[in-house]
């Protein structure tokens, strides 16, 4: 049976709100509209109770206590609050920050901002599979290092970092360890104790919750302190002022609870779908390259380069399938993916990459449809590609002196 079009396979960008999550949220748009900070009436009390229940649900998903969860507007804010907040608070201990080149822009641009105000940042390289080497972190740590920020799993290539080993190295030197866990939590096992994490960024909409709500885990034992970046009414124990997004928080709580409860089964199913997609494409299309690690990879993540076919052109050809590309042509900068480049993927191959993100609502029928479509469209575009023609006639493309080569 042909699947319903369009097909959504971009679950690293965002996920659909689970109907169970939506159902939990609805009352808080209606009669339960109270402000969780209102202490003097039942409307406020009900909102506060709902927020506190969600706090427990989100905390439980990462092995934390509810009192360690600070609500934010999303992971970008969580990353900013964690890194700027800890850097500012511990400034008298040092000015050195460590992160990795493949981190999300919310981390990298935050670090760049801090460099302008006197902090020194080490941007660690990654291995070919995209992993950060814990020894590289250990070697980069100095007595002046106050914050280390490393992601749990990469949004572009799905590579999972050895955060437990990294955390151990960081704690051995007494620095604060921040983990951007947005892509991993709810998909792979993660808890703050085994990761030795002090600060953890989370986002609801990557785990079938609503957009516009996130959280920052802030360790209490031993206590980690951050300076707030938003001032106001002193909400969230002074760490993040602003009236709480009650329906969003309720949805986040429900989404976290479902993801934690169903992770074991869901990750098995997604891994099977991902492998069906990968092997199906590899059986039908020659000259593909898997980007990232096969072993240390999020179950729903597939990132492939299709030699001789430009990524954006292929995305256009897959018009009823929502995917994304590391091609330059999809960005305003005309530079291909910095993540792929940092992993040593040659620039011409980075231009040909496609990211497929499988999620809770994808089906086998959809995967089979996409395999067919990819095989068909890559063939068509290769017939139009001068590079494919050269490769087929035995010309070594690298031997050609290309004009304007960077």
């Amino acid at each position, binding site marked *: 049976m042909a699947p319903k079009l369009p097909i959504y396979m971009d679950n690293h960008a965002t996920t659909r709100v689970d109907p169970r999550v939506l159902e939990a949220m609805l009352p808080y748009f209606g009669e339960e509209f109270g402000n969780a900070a209102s202490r003097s009436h039942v409307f406020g009390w009900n909102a506060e109770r709902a927020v506190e229940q969600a706090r427990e649900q989100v905390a439980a998903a990462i092995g934390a206590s509810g009192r360690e969860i600070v609500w934010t507007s999303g992971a970008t804010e969580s990353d900013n609050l964690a890194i700027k907040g800890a850097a500012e608070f511990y400034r008298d201990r040092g000015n050195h920050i460590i992160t990795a080149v493949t981190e999300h822009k919310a981390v990298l641009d935050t670090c760049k901002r801090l460099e302008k105000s006197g902090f020194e940042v080490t941007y660690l390289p990654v291995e070919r599979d995209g992993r950060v080497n814990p020894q590289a972190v250990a070697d980069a740590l100095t007595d002046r290092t106050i914050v280390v920020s490393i992601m749990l799993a990469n949004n572009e290539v799905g590579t999972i970092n050895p955060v437990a080993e990294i955390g151990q190295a960081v704690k051995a030197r007494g620095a604060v360890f921040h983990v951007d866990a947005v892509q991993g939590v709810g998909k792979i096992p993660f808890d703050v104790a085994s990761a030795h994490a002090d600060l953890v960024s989370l986002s609801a909409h990557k785990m079938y919750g609503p957009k516009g709500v996130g959280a920052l885990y802030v360790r209490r034992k031993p206590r980690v302190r951050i300076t707030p970046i938003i001032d106001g009414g002193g909400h969230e124990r002074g760490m993040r002022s602003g009236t709480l997004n009650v329906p969003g928080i309720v949805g986040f709580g429900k989404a976290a609870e479902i993801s934690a409860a169903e992770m074991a089964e869901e990750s098995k199913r997604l891994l099977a779908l991902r492998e069906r997609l990968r092997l199906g494409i590899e059986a039908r299309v020659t000259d593909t390259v898997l980007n990232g690690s096969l072993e240390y990879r999020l179950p729903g993540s597939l990132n492939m380069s299709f030699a001789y076919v430009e990524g954006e052109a292929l995305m*256009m050809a897959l018009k009823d399938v929502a995917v994304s590309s590391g091609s330059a042509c999809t960005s305003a900068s005309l530079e291909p993916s910095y993540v792929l480049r940092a992993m040593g993927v040659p620039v011409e191959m980075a231009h040909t990459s496609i990211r497929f993100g499988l999620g809770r609502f994808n089906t086998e029928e959809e995967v089979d449809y996409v395999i067919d479509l990819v095989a068909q469209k890559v063939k068509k575009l290769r017939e139009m590609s001068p590079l494919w023609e050269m490769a087929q006639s035995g010309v070594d493309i690298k031997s050609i002196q290309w004009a*304007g080569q960077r």
Partner: protein
Amino acid sequence: MAYSGKVIDHYENPRNVGSLDKDAPNVGTGLVGAPACGDVMKLQIQVSDSGVIEDAKFKTFGCGSAIASSSLATEWIKGMTLEQAMSVRNTQIVQELSLPPVKIHCSVLAEDAIKSAIADYRRKQRGSQAQVGQA
């Protein structure tokens, strides 16, 4: 990126995809761009004795607007004299396809491809005349 209907039409139904015999004396080949930049265009022209482009073919590695720009270029130059084809400007391609600013380089590449194919043809013609002279 939201493309104009014309880009999508050329992308989905590209005109004149293919190759001409690059060794033929009346065929000029232009190969511009670079794989590392994400765009490579091969544009070929077949020129009649009277200096008219009687056929044009292209192959392009690149995004949708690169493919559309080269498809449009081949469509336009077919039937033109070499002089007329030399005067095709990238801005005309931008206008016809309503290319957004970030895609203007695709039209520049198409203009370069035309000029490069004509230069190759002229080089071949000079070469063969020189050979005739020597004989």
